[in-house]
């Protein structure tokens, strides 16, 4: 979360037109291997739309004025998305149209319906959205917009006993905004360049929630100015804004009038050159807000209590201040320095639910040096110290000071045209000191060290190699005796060589080897220590016998044993006692047949090339796991796998019309899991048709 998360002009300045064009990523592939890059649902399009509707959005205006079109341009388009996998199957239909007029107006209309049925659970999602907006550019400097958004989110789950649990989040909003932007002033005498802009927004929102209905009127104004001096390099900018809302809520039992919010914000910045190659960059941010709304009653730790009788009026106060000063210097061509200091404070206070109070104050200092030696070694050194006070109020015993110190060093050397080496290392201490250690004895220190070396080389035109060696060490130290039983050190060593042999354009072999040793040692209990050793080997053959056929054979092997260092009964010396061994083998076979590959070119040289491709594919995965308990001399073998057969294709019809699809039947076998998980269709398609 950013420091100025509540700055409404950042959060709400999202173009309705742009958002309605965005297409959510198609869920595809094996659910057993989810991607971890974007898993939080707060970033979903629907969530963003619903939140924007609730907060009252504004419409972005273009940065530059487009050349006026001749006549009226009408651009409707239809989008269909289908996705299905082991977890769910869903479809989204969307229609959008844009109309450009010669008078500088752009009309956008968007309607969509999205349904998802879950296979492994009794659940159903339905989300609908309708939006309309018009953006009018009056002249080079002035534009305005009006928008309407209707967002409907509905989830239904079947609960034990057969009843339904519904979740409703509906919003209808009307927004309006005007923008005046002066980005260039050619005849200014003392100032070489002056830029400024100002925006006014207004919104009305009707919201429907599970236990209450909300109505909101919102108005806001914000703007900014930036300038540069002629005589020497100096750039100053400032932005400020204010937004207010007037709200009311009603439940089946009560009405709440006189609700609302107020937000003020100011940010300033200064960038100047003090001397040759020394730059100072300073920023200050200020944000204040109060909000009164109809909240759901909560327990001391936040558990909501459902029902209209538990809705009450809550007032929240937020305050944030932030100062950052950075200095960048180029001492010589080979040596560059950067120093950054910051001081932030963030306060959240509540009138009723006072246990939610928090005040966070952060002071940070960071310095880094980048040095390039005459023999082309690039060295970086950075030091960082951050202290954070988290004051969680008098009703909490959790308030603490957090200190983080970090030093990191890195070297990069290109030994020859075909060989390079990277070395990096860092040490970090994290220290937490609670303000009331008697009531809350959780003081702790943690030290993390890591060192990594990587050497990459092309030994032969057809042979690429790399070797990486890394060490990771952590020490967890709880100070108090009530917590110190888990004090431990963890060390991880890894050695990973890898080779890629390119025999020809049609045949390639990739091999990687690995040795990994992890040791966890509990400080105060001698017998509590764990050693895990892994030997890893992967071998991948990529063979293309013809231009249309691709074959992949991938084999992976992993041998692992685990044990502990235990005292010998006779000598008392610690000796390794291996308790278990396991071996895993994994095979992947994949065949791709490129049935159709066309590149259709129009008659004119400027005509685009239309790609049309169709593949059939088949894939087989097999895993075997053999687990041996050495102490009891028992062995357990489990296997699993899946076969996937299907087709995928891309078809470009031209004029932006396209169809992309993938459809495969998947059959899995394993000891556990429901039948629905073992036999399913894995499908995805996107059909885009501009009229």
């Amino acid at each position, binding site marked *: 979360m950013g420091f100025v998360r509540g700055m409404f002009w950042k959060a709400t300045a999202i173009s309705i037109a742009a958002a309605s064009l965005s297409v959510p990523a198609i869920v595809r592939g094996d659910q057993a291997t989810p991607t971890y890059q974007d898993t939080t649902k707060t970033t979903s399009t*629907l969530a963003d739309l619903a939140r924007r509707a609730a907060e009252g959005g504004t419409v972005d205006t273009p940065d530059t004025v487009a050349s006026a079109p001749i006549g009226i341009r009408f651009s409707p388009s239809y989008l269909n998305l289908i996705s299905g996998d082991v977890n769910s199957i869903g479809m989204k239909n969307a229609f959008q149209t844009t109309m450009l007029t010669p008078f500088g107006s752009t009309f956008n209309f968007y309607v969509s319906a999205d349904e998802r049925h879950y296979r492994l659970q009794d659940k159903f999602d339905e989300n609908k959205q309708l939006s309309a907006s018009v953006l009018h550019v009056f002249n080079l400097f002035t534009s305005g917009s009006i928008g309407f958004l209707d967002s409907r989110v509905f989830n239904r789950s079947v609960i034990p006993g057969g009843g339904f649990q519904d979740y409703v989040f509906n919003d209808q909003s009307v927004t309006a905004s005007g923008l005046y932007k002066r980005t260039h002033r050619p005849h200014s005498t003392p100032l070489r360049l002056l830029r400024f802009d100002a925006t006014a927004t207004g919104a009305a929102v009707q919201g429907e929630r599970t236990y209450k209905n909300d109505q909101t009127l919102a108005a806001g104004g914000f703007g900014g100015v930036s300038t540069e001096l002629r005589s020497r390099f100096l750039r100053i900018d400032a932005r400020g804004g204010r937004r207010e809302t007037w709200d009311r809520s009603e439940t089946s039992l009560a009405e709440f009038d006189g609700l609302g919010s107020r937000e003020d914000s100011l940010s300033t910045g200064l960038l100047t050159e003090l001397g040759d190659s020394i730059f100072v960059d300073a920023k200050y941010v200020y944000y204040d807000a109060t909000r009164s709304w109809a909240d759901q009653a909560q327990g001391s730790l936040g558990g909501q209590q459902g029902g209209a009788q538990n809705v009450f009026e809550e007032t929240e106060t937020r305050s944030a201040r932030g100062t950052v000063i950075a200095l960048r210097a180029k001492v010589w061509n080979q040596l560059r320095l950067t120093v950054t200091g910051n001081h932030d404070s963030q306060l959240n206070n509540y009138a009723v639910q006072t246990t939610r109070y928090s005040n966070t104050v952060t002071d940070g200092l960071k310095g880094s040096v980048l040095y390039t030696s005459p023999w082309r070694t690039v060295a970086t050194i950075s030091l960082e110290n951050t202290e954070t006070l988290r004051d969680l109020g008098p009703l909490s015993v959790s308030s603490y000071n957090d200190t983080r110190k970090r030093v990191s060093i890195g070297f990069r050397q290109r030994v020859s045209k075909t060989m390079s080496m990277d070395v990096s290392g860092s040490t970090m201490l994290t220290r937490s000191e609670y303000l009331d250690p008697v009531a809350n004895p959780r003081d702790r220190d943690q030290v993390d060290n890591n060192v990594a070396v990587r050497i990459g080389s092309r030994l032969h035109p057809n042979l690429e190699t790399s070797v990486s060696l890394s060490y990771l060490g952590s020490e967890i130290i709880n100070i108090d005796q009530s917590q110190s039983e888990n004090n431990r050190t963890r060390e991880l060593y890894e050695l990973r060589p890898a080779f890629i042999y390119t025999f020809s354009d049609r045949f390639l072999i990739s091999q990687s080897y690995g040795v990994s040793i992890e040791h966890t040692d509990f400080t105060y209990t001698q017998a509590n220590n764990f050693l895990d050793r892994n030997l890893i080997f992967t071998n991948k053959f990529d063979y293309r016998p013809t231009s249309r056929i691709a074959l992949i054979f991938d084999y992976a092997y992993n041998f692992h044993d685990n044990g502990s260092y235990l005292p010998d009964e006779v000598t008392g010396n610690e000796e390794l006692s291996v308790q278990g061994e396991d071996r895993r083998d994994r095979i992947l076979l994949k065949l791709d047949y490129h049935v159709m590959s066309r590149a259709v070119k129009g008659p004119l040289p400027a005509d685009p090339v239309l790609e049309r491709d169709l593949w059939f594919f088949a894939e087989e995965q097999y895993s075997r796991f053999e687990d041996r308990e050495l102490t009891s001399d028992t062995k357990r073998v489990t296997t699993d796998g899946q076969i996937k057969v299907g087709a995928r294709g891309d078809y470009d019809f031209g004029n932006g019309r396209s169809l992309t699809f993938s459809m495969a039947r998947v059959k899995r076998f394993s000891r556990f899991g429901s039948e629905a998980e073992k036999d399913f269709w894995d499908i995805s398609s996107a059909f885009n048709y501009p009229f």
Partner: protein
Amino acid sequence: MATRLGLSLLGVVLAMSGCLFDTREARPPDPNSGGCGAISLTTPDDVFEAMTCALESEQDAAYERVLSERFVFSPTQEDSLDQTFAGTAVYANWTKTVEMDVLRLMLSDAQTVAVDFTPSVLINQTTFVRFRVPYQLVVVNVATPTDTTRYAGVAQFDVRNEGGNWRLTFWDEIETVPNLSTWGYLKGILRLRLNP
């Protein structure tokens, strides 16, 4: 000259690291504290045993062992859109570090914690298991007046074998329970306090 300067800087850094990174002395554990000892993570089910033990004995360091370095948490859509979090992306970038900060705050303000996981296997592969986990969490807080808050929901837990140890990589909240908040909602509230 440049080499000398570089070496000097390196020397300063190394010298500083020696004294700056000293840790405090810990007190040996109280044999009567009834804490949560080390649990080996050799089977996927060990994850639940270790988490329950760590939570109920309020040992955050034991909980930390269960989490993968690439741990991710995802809330239900209901929690994500809740009005309490209006204007904040409170669930964004929920990593292991965030999870541990939030857990420590929960344990610090809790007098007692009771948890009940009832996992069932959805997907079982040699190095990956996905569980469907209906859960209940009961927290008695230390603040005055003391009260008891109950949370419940259904989550999917992805557990992976990492170097021989099974660890939790993905906590995906999927269902709510009528009239009760989810654990994910509690996490959101706590993170809001840590990173307002």
